[in-house]
C-alpha cells in the first residue's frame, strides 16, 4: 500500500491570440493562398504583365515551343499557338476570365440560392413546396448539359455565361440553406422576434440571414472549384466565353489540334493553370470550412 504523492498539476498550452496568429498555425494553407493571390494579382495587372497582346498573333511565329526547347525563343516564353499568339500572355489574360466568371457566378448563385433557401425555409407552406419542387427538378438536370442548353438559347458572352452558371448552380445553395433555416426557425431568438412583432421580412433579413451566411460562404468555396471547371468545360466545347477573349478552356480546345503532332505546351500549360486554381480553391475551401463550421467537416 503506497501513499500517493500530491497530484501533479497538469499544464496546458496557453494560446496567446495574436492578430495574424491564425496564419502561423500549421494548418493554414499558405501555399494555396499564395497561389490564389498570385493568380488574382496576375489577373488584375494583366495589361502590364503580359509581354504580348493575347488576341493578335504573328503568322510567322506559329506553333513555337517553349523557350527551353529547340526552336523556342525567349520572346515567346511558353510558346505560341496556331495563330502565333503568345501562350504566356493568353494564360495571363485567361486568369482574368476564369477569376471573374468564377467568382461572379458563385456569388450570383449564392445570393439567389440563399435568398430562395431562406424564403422557402422560413415561409413554409406552398411557397416552400413550389420552390423545393423546382429545386429538385433543377437538380435533376445535369449541370453541364443544362448550361449548354441555356447557352444555345441565349448565345454565349461573358456575362451570359455568368448568369447561366449562376442559374445552374443556385440549387445547391437553396437546398442546404433551407435545411439550416428549418432548424433555425425553432430557436429561441427567432421566437422572441416573432413575439416582439417583427415582420417576416425583418426576421428573415436581420435574424436568419446572418446565421446562414457562414454556410453560404462554405458552400461558395466548394462551388468555386466546380464552377471554374464548368466554365473551362464550356469554353472547351465552344460555348463558353467567346473568342477572341482568351479563356483557358478555349486554349485547351485550340490546343487539341496540335496535340497529335506533339505540341504539348498548348495543352499542358492551360490545364496546369486550371488545376492550380481549382486545387487552391479547394484547399482554401477545406480550411475555411473547418474554421467556420466544424460540424460540416464531413462534407
Amino acid at each position, binding site marked *: *500500500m*503506497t*501513499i*500517493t504523492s*500530491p*497530484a501533479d*498539476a*497538469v*499544464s*496546458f*498550452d496557453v494560446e496567446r491570440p495574436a492578430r495574424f496568429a491564425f496564419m502561423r498555425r500549421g494548418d493554414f494553407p499558405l501555399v494555396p493562398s499564395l497561389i490564389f493571390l498570385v493568380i488574382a494579382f496576375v489577373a488584375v495587372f494583366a495589361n502590364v504583365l503580359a509581354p504580348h497582346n493575347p488576341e493578335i498573333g504573328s503568322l510567322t511565329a506559329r506553333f513555337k515551343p517553349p523557350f527551353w526547347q529547340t526552336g523556342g525563343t525567349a520572346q515567346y516564353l511558353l510558346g505560341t499557338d496556331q495563330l502565333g499568339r503568345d501562350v504566356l500572355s493568353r494564360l495571363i489574360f485567361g486568369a482574368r476570365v476564369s477569376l471573374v466568371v468564377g467568382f461572379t457566378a458563385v456569388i450570383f448563385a449564392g445570393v439567389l440560392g440563399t435568398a430562395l433557401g431562406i424564403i422557402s425555409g422560413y415561409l413554409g407552406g406552398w411557397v416552400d413546396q413550389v420552390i423545393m419542387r423546382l429545386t429538385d427538378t433543377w437538380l435533376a438536370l445535369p449541370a453541364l448539359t443544362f448550361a449548354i442548353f441555356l447557352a444555345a438559347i441565349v448565345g454565349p458572352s461573358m456575362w451570359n455565361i455568368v448568369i447561366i452558371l449562376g442559374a445552374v448552380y443556385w440549387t445547391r445553395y437553396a437546398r442546404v440553406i433551407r435545411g439550416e433555416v428549418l432548424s433555425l426557425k425553432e430557436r429561441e431568438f427567432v421566437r422572441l422576434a416573432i413575439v416582439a412583432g417583427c415582420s417576416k421580412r425583418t426576421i428573415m433579413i436581420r435574424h436568419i440571414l446572418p446565421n446562414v451566411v457562414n454556410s453560404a460562404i462554405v458552400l461558395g468555396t466548394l462551388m468555386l472549384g466546380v464552377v471554374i471547371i464548368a466554365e473551362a468545360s464550356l469554353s472547351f466545347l465552344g460555348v463558353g466565353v467567346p473568342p477572341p477573349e482568351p479563356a483557358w478552356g478555349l486554349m485547351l480546345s485550340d490546343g487539341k489540334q496540335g496535340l497529335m503532332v506533339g505540341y504539348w505546351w498548348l495543352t499542358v500549360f492551360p490545364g496546369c493553370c486550371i488545376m492550380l486554381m481549382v486545387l487552391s480553391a479547394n484547399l482554401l475551401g477545406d480550411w475555411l470550412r473547418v474554421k467556420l463550421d466544424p460540424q460540416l467537416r464531413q462534407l
Partner: protein
Amino acid sequence: MSNRPLLELKNLSTHYVSAQGTRVVRAVDEVSLRINAGETLGIVGESGSGKSTLALTILRILPMAAQIVSGQMLFEGEDLLLKSDEEMRRVRGKRIAMILQDPMASLNPLFTIGDQVAETLRVHEGASRASAWSRAVDLLKAVRIPSPDTRVTQFPHEMSGGMRQRIVGAIGISCEPRLLIADEPTTSLDLTIQAQYLALLRDLQREHGLALIFITHNLGIVAKMCDQLAVMYAGRVVESGPVSQIFNSPTHPYTEALLNSIPRMSDNRHRLTAIEGQPPDLSALPPGCSFAPRCPQVFERCRAQAPPEFKPLSGGAARCWLAHASRDNPAPLRVGSGAL
C-alpha cells in the same frame, strides 16, 4: 478451487492524451479492485467518473487516444496487460464478455439475430454453421425470448428494446465466460422491463457460475444485485467493500452523499438532497483529494494531499483521510469544516 480472485486490478491507470500531448485526462486513476468467481461487483459513479473507461480497459478495447499507463490486470492469475493482441482477442467474448448500454445500437441492423448470436460460437469454438445456429436458438431460450425459432431469423429492428437487450445478454453468455461486464444494461430499458432483466441476469449468473461486474449509477440496483460495491469518483475508487456494510455505514463522504440522495418513501425531509458543486474537470484535477471541493467534511489535509487507500477496521477500503483518522485516533482531526 483456489482462493485466488477471478479478476484482480492493481493500481490500474488509463489516461487520455490529447493530440498535441498537452492535455492529459486521468480517466482511470490507480484503481485497485478484486472480484471472486461467482460474485457480483457493482461499480457506481456519476457520468465521467471513469466506470465505462474501466470496463473498456479490462477488455483492452480503448480508443486510440487512450493508453493504459500503469498497473496490472490479473485474470485467473494471468496479467492481461502482458498478452499480445491476438491472445487478448481470444479472451474477449470467450472468457470475459461485455454487455453494452444501448441494445439498438449494439446490434448490426443488417444481419439476423441468429447470425449475430452464433458468431461468437463460430469464431471462438469453431462451431459449424448448423450447430452454431441451433445453439443460438438454445441461447435465445435461455434468455427467455418467446418463440426463439422464428425470432432467430429476424432482424434487430423487429424486436422491442427489452428483447434486444436479452439478445445482447445471450451473445454475452454464449461461450460460457467466467466474467461478464454489464455497462449500464438497464439504463435504456423501461422500468417494468428492468426488473425482469435483472432477474434474468441473476438466474444466468447462478446457472453458469458467472462473476458479474455491474456498472451503474443506480444504487437501488446495486442493493438488489450486488455482493460487493466500488464507488468511483474522478477516475478513482473512493470506497469499496461489501454492499451491506457500505450501505449501512459508509466511510467516504461521497458515498454517504450518494446514499442520502436516494429519495425514500419514509423520508421526512422536505427537500431532495443533492451533492453540491459540479463533477470535476478530469484534465485539471485539484491537488489533494479530488472530492475536496464538494466535500461536506473537508479539512486542511484533504486539500493538500490526496489520501491513499485505507482499510478501516470495519472492512473494505476507502480513500479518505477520515478513514485514516479513525484508525489512528478515535476522534477524527477536523480543522475548519467545509460546507454543511
